């Protein structure tokens, strides 16, 4: 009896040590090392990003001569479309969250979680209703922005991982966008009634959308007919 108890104690001790050792195994160390590297890479990126913004502002201040005004107005427009500057204006905020429908046994739970195509459809509807600038969870949406489901998060702009609830902000005419979304048989209806996805649409007097964080220099595309 004593022997057995002893053995049991031993086992418990081993178990305890094992869970403590987990922190020290190579895979965990790898993750820790990589996390630190990612953190410093992110700081480095942000530093350059700030410098770019600074330089653009400076360039704006040295080109204030009256004769340059038409060019500057054009530049301001292109920069908004290119996602190079933050914008603000009236609009809407749409938040999407997974279904709260209670599943029946045998139903595929995957059908009731939010998919990238649901997000794509909402974005597409907003675009059709005249949205001028959009972001999802604070991530600026560009002409090249994808929306991709990876597990419980979605990936936007290649590396930006955003988690539910997904909040889409759009600058544009609020009422047009709201009625387009809430149209009978429209996107919100389908998502809500068919799949039980939770959707809320709010009219906003002012939303602010950040600039794209990163460089937009192309590596493959160049002006057609321009020099090689």
């Amino acid at each position, binding site marked *: 009896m004593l022997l057995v108890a002893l053995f049991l104690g031993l086992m418990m001790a081993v178990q305890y040590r094992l869970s403590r050792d987990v922190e020290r195994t190579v895979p965990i160390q790898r993750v820790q090392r990589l996390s630190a590297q*990612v953190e410093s890479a992110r700081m480095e990126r942000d530093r350059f990003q700030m410098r770019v913004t600074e330089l653009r502002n400076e360039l704006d201040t040295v080109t204030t001569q009256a004769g340059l005004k038409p060019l500057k107005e054009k530049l301001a427009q292109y920069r908004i479309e290119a996602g190079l500057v933050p914008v603000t204006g009236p609009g809407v905020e749409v938040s999407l969250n997974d279904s709260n429908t209670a599943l029946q046994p045998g139903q595929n739970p995957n059908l009731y979680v939010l998919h990238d195509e649901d997000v794509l459809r909402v974005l597409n509807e907003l675009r059709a209703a005249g949205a001028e600038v959009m972001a999802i969870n604070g991530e600026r949406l560009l002409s090249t922005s994808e929306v991709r489901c990876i597990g419980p998060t979605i990936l936007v702009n290649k590396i930006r991982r955003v988690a539910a609830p997904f909040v889409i902000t759009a*600058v544009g005419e609020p009422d047009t966008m709201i009625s387009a979304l809430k149209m009978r048989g429209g996107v919100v209806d389908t998502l809500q009634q068919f799949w039980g996805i939770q959707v809320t649409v709010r009219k906003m007097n002012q939303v602010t959308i950040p600039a794209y964080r990163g460089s937009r220099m192309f590596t493959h*595309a160049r002006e057609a007919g321009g020099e090689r």
Partner: protein
Amino acid sequence: MSKRYTIGLVALVLGLLLALQFRTTQNIEPTVPYDRASELTAELRALEKETTGLEADVGDLERKLSRARMGYTQAEEILRSEVKDAAVIAGVTAVEGPGVRVRINNPAGQGAQSGIFTVRDEDLLKLLNELRATGAEAMSINGQRIISTSEVRLAGSFINVNTQKITPPYEILAIGGPAALRSSLEIRNGLVETLRDWGMEVTVEDDDRIVIPAYRGSLKFEYAQQAREG
């Protein structure tokens, strides 16, 4: 007799513990951290790539700035080149480069617009999304340049892009790394395979010179204004 039961019970607990022990060791090693590690590595690589791009931006802007300070003529010249660069990114200039050409048509013998497996707006949206995810820099559908606000939407029995009606067969052009773009679409169990299974005719070909037209609409912002900071 009761002593035997006790021993039995202890043995049972011990067995459970052993099993648990075994499972923990098995679980920890390969699965969880490996995924995290590879995820982090991908993130690291992407961040470094962004930094490299931004570094180039900084160099470019510093050059422009020092020239623009020289005088009015130089300032004007620099401003023109800034406008030109922004125009390329904004999509108001035609661009060229290597890429892919994707053609997609309704199932053969189905001229009519109706049918469950005729090409829908969401099929085109998914194709665009896939190309974007693989690094496409500029895209168009049937001559309509895709900008950040371009919709691809079924309106009545036609698909509209940039509020212009387009009709099948659809042709999507994308500039980017041709091999990557192509394989992202043609990968096994990928999007193109699904569309083909539905009877649609899809071809993907790469080309070292794709020309994509400029956005033809107006870029007027009635509601959006540049924010002071963000």
